């Protein structure tokens, strides 16, 4: 091998090392300047399914992330001024049915009746909701209204599905004024495309 070829080789090795180092530096700079972002699609309107979107959104906001939640179909109920969310074990056999209070022989034990039978009783849903709320209060779990308020405070973007309002004949005055916009899928997807985390609840 000639002397000049050896010199060229060593130059290109230097060049590669220089490039690798600059590249790493630039990538680190970029990462440090990047604000993480998350979009969530909330489609459920029951009390239990209201928790995941609001817990994740408020926590991500606390971590300094940009968060937007798109509420569609029954999820739109989570944006009503009058939050009247219910929970039912019907069709939800994994939901524990335990009394948080009552006689000692019954307290804390799984009720020995199938939920499909229990749910035939009038007022059953209201009772199940009350039981769940009571259990949550006892364990220091925030009510949905509080979590929603924290999301609003933390500037989580609440986006509502226009089609759902039309579909169910809702009046927009039934919803909280903090809703950022009423849009369709085509407006939400570009935001989701650039987000680091996308969740469907």
């Amino acid at each position, binding site marked *: 091998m000639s002397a000049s070829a050896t010199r060229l080789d060593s130059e290109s090795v230097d060049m590669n090392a220089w490039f690798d180092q600059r590249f790493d530096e630039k990538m680190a700079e970029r990462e440090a300047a990047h604000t993480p972002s998350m979009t969530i699609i909330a489609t459920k309107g029951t009390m239990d399914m209201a928790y995941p979107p609001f*817990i994740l959104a408020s*926590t991500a906001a*606390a*971590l*300094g992330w940009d968060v937007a939640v798109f509420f569609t179909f029954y999820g739109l109920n989570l944006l009503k001024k009058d939050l009247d969310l219910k929970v039912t074990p019907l069709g939800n056999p994994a939901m524990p049915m335990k009394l948080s209070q009552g006689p000692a022989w019954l307290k804390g034990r799984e009720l020995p009746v199938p939920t499909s039978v229990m749910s035939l009783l009038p007022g059953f849903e209201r009772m199940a909701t009350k039981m769940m709320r009571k259990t949550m209060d006892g*364990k*220091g779990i*925030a009510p949905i209204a509080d979590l929603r308020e*924290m999301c609003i405070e933390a500037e989580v973007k609440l986006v509502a599905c226009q089609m759902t309002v039309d579909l169910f004949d809702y009046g927009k005055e039934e919803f909280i004024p903090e809703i950022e916009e009423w849009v369709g899928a085509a407006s939400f997807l570009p935001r989701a495309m650039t987000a680091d985390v996308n969740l469907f609840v």
Partner: protein
Amino acid sequence: MTETAHTLDARGLNCPLPILRTKKAIAGLDVGEVLEVTSSDPGSLKDMDSFCSQTGHEMLSSGEVDGDFVFRIRKA
């Protein structure tokens, strides 16, 4: 050196409230000030670490004291 001027009692609260309250309390501090948080939620041991590494605040110490979890966090 102990330099605790600010405390937050998050006992009795469950996920994600200890984190949300901590974030709020820290927002009211000056950079370099220390917040001492007491929580009864065992999940907050890992969550507080994650909160600090995401937000850049410095976890000075964390551990169990008399059945509760105590965190000392310096605002960055």
